[in-house]
C-alpha cells in the first residue's frame, strides 16, 4: 500500500487532495435494536484479525513520515449495515465479506435475543476514519 500511496501522489495536481476512508480497526459490532434501546450481540472478527487495517495505517504513517502528504483534516463516522434479521445479515456477510468470522457465542446470543423478543432487525456497526490529505510537492 505504500507503493500505491506514492503512485497516487504522482497522479495528483498541485493544490489537490487525497481523501482516505477506511475502518479504524476497532472490532465491528452486531447490535440488536429494541425500541429505544439496543442490545449488544457481540463482535465480528476476521480470520486474519483485521491485519489489513493495521497494515493500511502503517502505510499511511510511512508516507506521512516521508513527507509525501500532510493531514489537513481528520474525522470519524459510524457506518451501519441494516438487516431484517441476524440470519439475513450473516448470509450477507458470508457472501460479501470473505474473511468475516462470526463466533458460536455471537450466534448463540443472537438466537437468545430472537427467542426472547422475536426475530428482529440487526445492525452491523463499524467506526470509520476519514482524512483529507494534502500532497506535498
Amino acid at each position, binding site marked *: 500500500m505504500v507503493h500505491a500511496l506514492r503512485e497516487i501522489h504522482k*497522479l495528483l495536481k498541485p493544490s*489537490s487532495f487525497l481523501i482516505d476512508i477506511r475502518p479504524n480497526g476497532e472490532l465491528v459490532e452486531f447490535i440488536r435494536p429494541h425500541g429505544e434501546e439496543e442490545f449488544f450481540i457481540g463482535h465480528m472478527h476476521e480470520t486474519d484479525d483485521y491485519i*489489513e487495517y493495521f497494515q493500511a495505517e502503517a502505510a499511511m504513517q510511512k508516507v506521512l513520515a516521508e513527507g509525501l502528504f500532510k493531514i489537513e483534516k481528520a*474525522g470519524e*463516522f459510524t457506518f451501519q449495515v441494516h438487516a431484517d434479521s441476524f440470519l439475513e445479515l450473516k448470509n450477507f456477510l458470508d457472501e460479501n465479506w470473505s474473511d468475516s468470522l462470526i463466533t458460536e457465542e455471537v450466534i448463540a446470543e443472537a438466537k437468545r435475543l430472537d427467542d426472547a423478543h422475536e426475530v428482529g432487525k440487526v445492525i452491523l456497526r463499524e467506526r470509520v476514519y476519514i482524512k483529507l490529505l494534502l500532497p506535498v510537492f
Partner: protein
Amino acid sequence: MPILKDPEKNEIKALFDLYDHWAGKSVLEIGSGDGRLTWRYANIVARVLALEPDKETHAAALKDRPSEMEHVQLLNLGFDEFARKNKERFDLALLSWSL
C-alpha cells in the same frame, strides 16, 4: 427489506463535512465498489473516473448506474494497472475503503 448500507448517510455527510469544494473537480475514486458512495457525490463534480478491480462488483455498478451518472467512467481495473498506463492528473483522489 433488503440489506441497507448506511441508510443514515453518515458516510456522505462525513465526506462533505471534510471537504466542500467539489464543484468542477476531477475525481479518481479507487475502490468504487458497487457505486454506493460514487452516486452520492458524482452529481456535483465535473468528472469521475472510478476503479473497481472485482469483475462482479464492477458489473453491478454498471447495471445500477443511475441515468444521470453517464459522466462517471467506471473501469474494471486495479489501481496498479491503471497507474502504469495513466497520464491524467486529478483534483481529488478518493481512497474508498481500499485497504
